[in-house]
């Protein structure tokens, strides 16, 4: 019994079984706690600021304007895309993918959320835009 021989004077010697038990308990603990951890990720935008703005010779581009209304509706060119409760925004993504496929991604996408819009909704749109391959995203 144990992991070591009982030496003559009754001293238990080196027991490896309890150590292995402790290692497994620790392993289980860290497995359980790692499953519930969230890793923070990022969505990038660019702001027109003096330092990082590219050279003033701007190529005339037609920006894509997306309005976000306070109730969650997404509006572009006077047309509503997707329902306010849709988190994935499939119609918007499809339209953006199509546009980028036809015209490339050099046209900036400008977001104009209503001041009362929730940050969550703005992130939904950013997420959809980023997933559709938009590279130039900014707010106005």
């Amino acid at each position, binding site marked *: 019994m144990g992991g070591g021989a009982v030496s003559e004077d009754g001293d238990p010697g080196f027991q490896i079984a309890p150590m292995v038990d402790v290692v497994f308990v620790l392993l289980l603990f860290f497995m359980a706690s790692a499953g519930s951890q969230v890793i923070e990720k990022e969505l990038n935008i*660019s702001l027109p*600021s003096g330092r990082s703005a590219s050279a003033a010779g701007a190529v005339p581009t037609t920006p894509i304007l997306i309005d976000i209304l306070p109730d969650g509706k997404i509006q572009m060119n006077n047309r509503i895309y997707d329902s306010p409760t849709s988190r994935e925004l499939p119609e918007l993504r499809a339209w953006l993918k199509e546009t980028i496929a036809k015209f490339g991604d050099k046209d900036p996408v400008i977001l104009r959320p209503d001041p009362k819009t929730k*940050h969550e909704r703005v*992130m939904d749109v950013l997420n959809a835009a980023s997933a559709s391959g938009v590279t130039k995203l900014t707010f106005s």
Partner: protein
Amino acid sequence: MSAAPQSRKSKKKVRKPDHEPDPEFQIAPMIDILLVLLVFFMSISSTEVLQTNKEVNLPIAKEAKEAKDNPGQVIINVTYATMNDATAIEVDQRGFGSPSDMVPLLQDKVGKNPLLRVLIRADREVRFDFIRQVLQVVAESGVGNVTFSVVDKDANAPS
């Protein structure tokens, strides 16, 4: 002839000692554990961890990109209290009353690191009006690279 009674076999008798001496007090293992704990807490309190406010409930965005290494960043935490609909800003564990109070701090940091980027950790319930003010202040301070922090799933939701 019956076998002579076996002489007492020389069998090993496991002798229980009458009393076991107490193990003597060993300080070396205690100091080892102390040092391990010290190293653990030193590594946990890195500046990244201190800059994030754990009460911010980040919005969910499934297609967000992994955080990549950055040339120095400032983390702006925008908290939201549901109870009284109050938004507050916290940077480097300092609270700011309004976004424009951050201008000197941001300009100072940009002066030291021109490639600085700003990471905005805003609660999902914050109204865009507030975020717009923060973005304006950040743009005024000369930072062009702005990133929003999101998560890809809720901590307690079944994956």
